[in-house]
């Protein structure tokens, strides 16, 4: 008799229930977007509308993906908004419209993000400080640095840079989302990706299995820093300038996307693909509320209601799926 095996699908639907749910929620939000757009303007969303929505979503997609990686290791990064503040300010004050300058400053900005993540990671792992303490402090420091780099909103981002990173007339944004997705899918299949999950599942057990827990946790913060810096670049490109407080609102939005994406705050469960969907949902929701004629004053009220509703729905669906699965598992299992 051979070992019990079930179909790939039954695992996908069971273990990835939160991920599938994130896809479903994205689908529903897209449908709602189309519906309210059509009700308001009496025609379907144009290519321009889609393209600008996608490029609007890019900063959140990147920052939330980074946050998702940190949350997977059972940690959190409050400094992501601060990193975006500093990096978009740096780009707006230093970048010139020559290819070498754009390339150089993009790399410098990403390196700044990575370095910040490294500091976070080392303070957490080597310094043995709580992630919440470390990152709340670095967030504050970064906000201060950003205000020093760019005291008033302004600066300048070359138009050609905006055309690549935040083009509202072409679906180029989808390519960047694809880059995040492919990056994650590859990462998951490297040792580092599997180690990220192992650390999030049980750091002590992972250590006993020979995984360098410190290195993995630090790597998560470095990845988050680089992703947040990229988000800062997208933010600067989208607004053709800089703002030393422009990244602040992305901190809570990144957690909303992580939650909607089905990543467990207890670590070890979830997927960054889900987080990307979650970021899409959060971004689209703003447009939906706009086209549904909701006073932007009350926007956050409805966002909150939606977030709680979505999480509750997710829990119900997951527990139903698991209950069914347990039943079928029991039937299929051979007795000893």
């Amino acid at each position, binding site marked *: 008799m051979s070992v019990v095996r079930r179909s790939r699908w039954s*695992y996908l639907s069971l273990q990835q229930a939160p991920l599938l749910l994130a896809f479903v929620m994205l689908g529903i939000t897209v449908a709602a977007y189309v519906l309210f757009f059509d009700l308001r303007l009496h025609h379907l969303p144009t290519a321009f509308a889609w393209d600008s929505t996608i490029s609007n979503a890019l900063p959140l997609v990147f920052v939330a993906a980074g946050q998702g990686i940190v949350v997977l290791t059972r940690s959190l990064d409050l400094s992501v908004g601060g990193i975006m503040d500093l990096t978009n300010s740096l780009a707006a004050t230093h970048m010139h419209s020559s290819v070498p300058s754009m390339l150089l400053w993009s790399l410098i900005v990403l390196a700044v993000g990575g370095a910040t993540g490294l500091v976070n990671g080392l303070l957490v792992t080597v310094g043995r400080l709580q992630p919440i303490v470390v990152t709340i402090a670095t967030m504050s420091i970064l906000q201060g640095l950003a205000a020093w780099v760019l005291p008033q909103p302004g600066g300048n981002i070359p138009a050609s840079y905006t055309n690549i990173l935040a083009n509202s007339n072409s679906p180029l944004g989808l390519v960047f989302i694809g880059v995040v997705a492919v990056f994650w899918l590859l990462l998951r299949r490297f040792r580092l990706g599997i180690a990220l999950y192992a650390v999030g*599942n049980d750091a002590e057990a992972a250590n*006993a299995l*020979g995984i360098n827990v410190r290195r993995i946790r630090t790597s998560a913060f470095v990845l988050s820093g680089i992703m947040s810096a990229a988000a800062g670049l997208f933010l600067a490109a989208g607004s053709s300038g800089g703002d030393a407080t422009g990244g602040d609102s992305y901190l809570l939005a990144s957690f909303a996307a992580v939650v909607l994406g089905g990543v467990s705050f207890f670590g070890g469960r979830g997927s960054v693909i889900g987080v990307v969907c979650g970021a899409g949902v959060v971004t689209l929701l703003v447009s939906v509320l706009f086209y549904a004629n909701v006073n932007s004053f009350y926007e956050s009220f409805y966002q909150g209601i939606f977030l709680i509703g979505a999480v509750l729905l997710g829990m119900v669906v997951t527990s139903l799926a698991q209950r069914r699965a347990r039943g079928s598992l029991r039937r299929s299992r*051979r007795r*000893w």
Partner: protein
Amino acid sequence: MLEAVDIAKSFGEVQALAGASFSLAPGEVHGLVGENGAGKSTLIKVLSGVLRPDRGQVFLNGRRVVVPSPAVARRLGLGTVFQELTLLRWMTVAENLLLDDLPRGRGGLVQRRKLADRAAAVLSSYGVESIDPLEVPDRLSLADQQILEIVRTLRRQPSILLLDEPTASLSAGQVDWLFAQVRRFRTEGGSVVFTSHRWKEVEELVDRLTVFRNGRDVATRERLDESEAVVLMTGRRLGEMYPPVPTATSEDVLLEVREVRSNVLDGVSFSVRRGEILGIGGLAGQGQRELFLTLFGARRAKGGEIVVGGQRRRIRRPKDAIRSGLGIALVPEDRKQEGLLLPLSVRDNLTLPVVGRFAIAGLIRRAEERRHVGELIARLQVKTTRSGSQAVETLSGGNQQKVLIGRWLLAGAQVLLLYDITRGVDLGTKHDLYKLVAELAEAGHAIVFYSSDTDETAHLCQRVLVMREGRVVRELAGAQVEPEAIVAASVMETAEV
């Protein structure tokens, strides 16, 4: 082969090991026996690099070694299955098994299909067919998780295998599987250190054993009969392990269960009288746990009636059970997860559900509370200070169990559901618990008792119901209540109902 000399280890003021020594010969299975807290687990942790000893030396093949981490222990050829599971709960079985040896293809990418196939091959090479490599441990039974842990350790092909209480959650068939693996490992030249609280298992498996008491080794023997072992382990002669079974049962039925059904239970009926200890027997996992949880309201029943003190009651949550006229209370095997607030004091844990009773206008009368707590601690012989200010997490398992029982007594529960309360409890405390159960029955409580140790059920209960596949298949009473009869009824395919 492996030798530990004069190992000492303290945790704060508690001395877990006080100069313990033992030596493992090549190709032998060496049992470590002793009460809980005798130091067996601590010694295994020291040898495995999880804990650093305060004093003492470890020799491997005659050479002195230092084991500062689990990784070093592994490199030295030591493979350990710890009492606490160390599986990654939400990663696949395959990833758990092969985390240190992931099959990788071009560019270092992990090949998932190969990973699952290889894991399946590993599992079946150890004769494990019931665990799916793509399942996650979180959804496996405790026994399957334990088996997975054992396979994972064996796969690394250690030269010395250290097993700390590996059978605690296994069924009889699974224990046989484990013993077969251990014997195969020994035939292939490996040496094994084995601990268990079940004497029969130790007797069956080991070539030699060392008895531990109070953090020291007191004897190493090739053969030892049980009564002699008890004396060595406890340092005193226990006489009879079990108290006499109380005989005086009244006709007063406290709890009656009629045709209770659920996903697992398939129409269970029985009744318990005042002063009776009713045993629930059968192999592990035949619905006993569900029965207890259902009666306590922690699981929903799908049909049937529960009659408490002559009145039909709906029990949908534990609160209903506790308030159902006579009070039904559950003492589960896993006190950590089901009932006790570990960081709080013994006193708080005892009085939590009834603290309002000591209050006047919301103010708790501490003196009154303390008096009750003091009486209870004395009655239950909880090993703690009389004021009960010690944190529950610092008590041993058996004493934690007593606190949980005490809480329900204070809450006035008359029907006590005792589910495997002696699991992982040392001999001395086990004896205290048996006495307590008999006393409670004599004091007029009705007790429903389940134990994974059939001997206990047979020696404590006046009547035993044997369960199989969610049904009661046999009732044994009076002289029929014998361990052999319970086992026979548990495994017989065609028992008369």
